[in-house]
């Protein structure tokens, strides 16, 4: 069949059912937007989980009244440990300054002396160390001379990890549901445009058109719909993401330790082409029983 006639017949379909296609593409775009958002969430959660899995971190609170020399020695000892990547000494003064910077309160708090804030050593752990190994390390460090307390963040980590995996499950469920919705919507739209154009299909069949000839324009329409909808969704998602990026980062970054990232070009292309693919498939399936005229 000639491409010219195929395209011109598909264009005729679009012209005639413009309203229908606008509604369909919009609702499809919404569905794809949900899918994209779920994927985005999944991807970022994955990134966070990976980062957390890799980068452990321990805070070692020091006993009051340690000499700077003792602190330096302790830091050196810690740095010498196999699991330790780097250390950073936070003196009482610095802890006080950080605290004051974080509160907006004035006088009363500012009067607090540095002695209120214990000095500490922030210990970065090399990547790849398991939570259990970090826990053991923390216990060993806790037994060292001059250490008052060790915070290994294990509890938080475990809770956040379970939160993350719950989030992943949720996002996956949403992706599946949305995929189903997209399929149903495309199918219904195609079925609707077929129902309206039943007579047309019947006439073509009775005049000796092959299935391919009849199916062609509908499949083109399905593909265009899917493409348009997914491209629209990607555009909207990108717009929303980059508009809200600063906000997202400030809300999440301290907490999760990573910057929010957008979907990679591969995933984006996959999303758009899956739109086209679903459109084509759904058209083909919906057409099947109508071709048996």
């Amino acid at each position, binding site marked *: *069949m*000639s491409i*010219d*006639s195929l395209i011109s017949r598909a264009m005729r379909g679009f012209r*005639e059912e413009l309203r229908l296609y606008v509604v369909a593409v919009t609702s499809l775009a919404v569905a794809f937007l949900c899918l994209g958002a779920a994927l985005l969430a999944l991807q970022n959660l994955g990134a966070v989980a990976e980062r957390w899995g890799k980068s452990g971190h321990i805070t070692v609170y020091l006993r009051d009244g340690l000499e700077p020399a003792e602190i330096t020695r302790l830091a050196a000892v810690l740095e010498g440990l196999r699991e330790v990547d780097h250390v950073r000494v936070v003196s009482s003064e610095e802890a006080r300054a950080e605290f004051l910077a974080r509160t907006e309160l004035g006088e009363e708090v500012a009067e607090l002396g540095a002695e209120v804030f214990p000095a500490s050593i922030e210990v970065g752990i090399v990547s790849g160390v398991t939570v259990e190994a970090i826990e053991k390390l923390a216990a060993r460090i806790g037994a060292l001379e001059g250490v008052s307390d060790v915070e290994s963040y294990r509890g938080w980590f475990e809770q956040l990890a379970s939160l993350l995996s719950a989030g992943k499950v949720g996002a996956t469920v949403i992706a599946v549901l949305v995929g189903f919705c997209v399929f149903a919507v495309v199918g219904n739209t195609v079925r609707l445009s077929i129902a309206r154009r039943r*007579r*047309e299909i*019947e*006439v*073509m*069949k*009775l*005049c*000796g*058109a*092959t299935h391919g*000839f009849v199916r062609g324009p509908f499949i083109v329409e399905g593909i265009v719909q899917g493409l348009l909808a997914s491209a629209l969704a990607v555009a909207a998602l990108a717009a929303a993401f980059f508009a809200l990026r600063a906000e997202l980062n400030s809300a999440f970054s301290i907490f999760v330790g990573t910057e929010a990232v957008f979907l990679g070009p591969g995933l984006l292309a996959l999303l758009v082409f899956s739109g086209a693919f679903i459109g084509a498939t759904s058209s083909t399936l919906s057409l099947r029983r109508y071709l048996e005229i």
Partner: protein
Amino acid sequence: MVSNRESRGGRPFAFFRAGARVGAEGAERPILAFEDVYKFFGKDQPALRGLNLTIERGEFVFLTGPSGAGKSTLLKLVYRELTVDSGRILFCGRDIARLTDRSIPFLRRNLGIVFQDFKVVPHWTVFENVAIALEILELPARLVRSRVGEALERVGLSGRGDERVGTLSGGEQQRVAVARAIVSEPALLLADEPTGNLDPTLAVDVLTLFEEIHQTGTTVLFATHDHGLIERRDHRILSLEQGRVYDVRRGLASWSSSGVHAVREARRAAG
């Protein structure tokens, strides 16, 4: 039309597969043969019961009979909208019932069909409705335009190609259906009540049109109730009744030259 016939070298015959030609054996056989055909709708109501019928290549046959006699069913069996329940229908010697689904389009490309309920697409223009029969054959757009124009002229609708068919009058729609059936110059023309919505003058015009096409070698099977029309021509008349061939005769026998028909006939004879 003439240019196209020349370019394709005689009657085109893409049967069962596009490009295939009917061989010598096909050409010798009757174009259509019904052998003991039964068609049942529900257990106890056969629409056709034991139909035997042969239509030779190049014949012009009227099919008549009361409402519900089975005329449309007979035609639907030929274009495989329905399949026989027993017996065989041979088109150029080949059994239509044994066509695969993929071959049916190529059978239909040899047929021109005027449906009893027109089956025009109301939201398409007149041009589009007629052109679809040629677009399916993948003819170039230029050729489609010229042949559609010619067909519309023959049914008295020239210059109305851009109107939407849904806005046409009943008779105009019927003529669009006629134009679509003839535009592809089919080997066999099946017309189911093609003049039911036409005034007597136009009805005779359409009949004459079919006869002209018949002159070029097309076989015509023309189902109609219009006794005024069939009795005045010297063609074979098959009368169906309750799914059986009840009577076979030739026209002109009982033709009385009274009323408007006579006037037109006279004019036609003169012109």
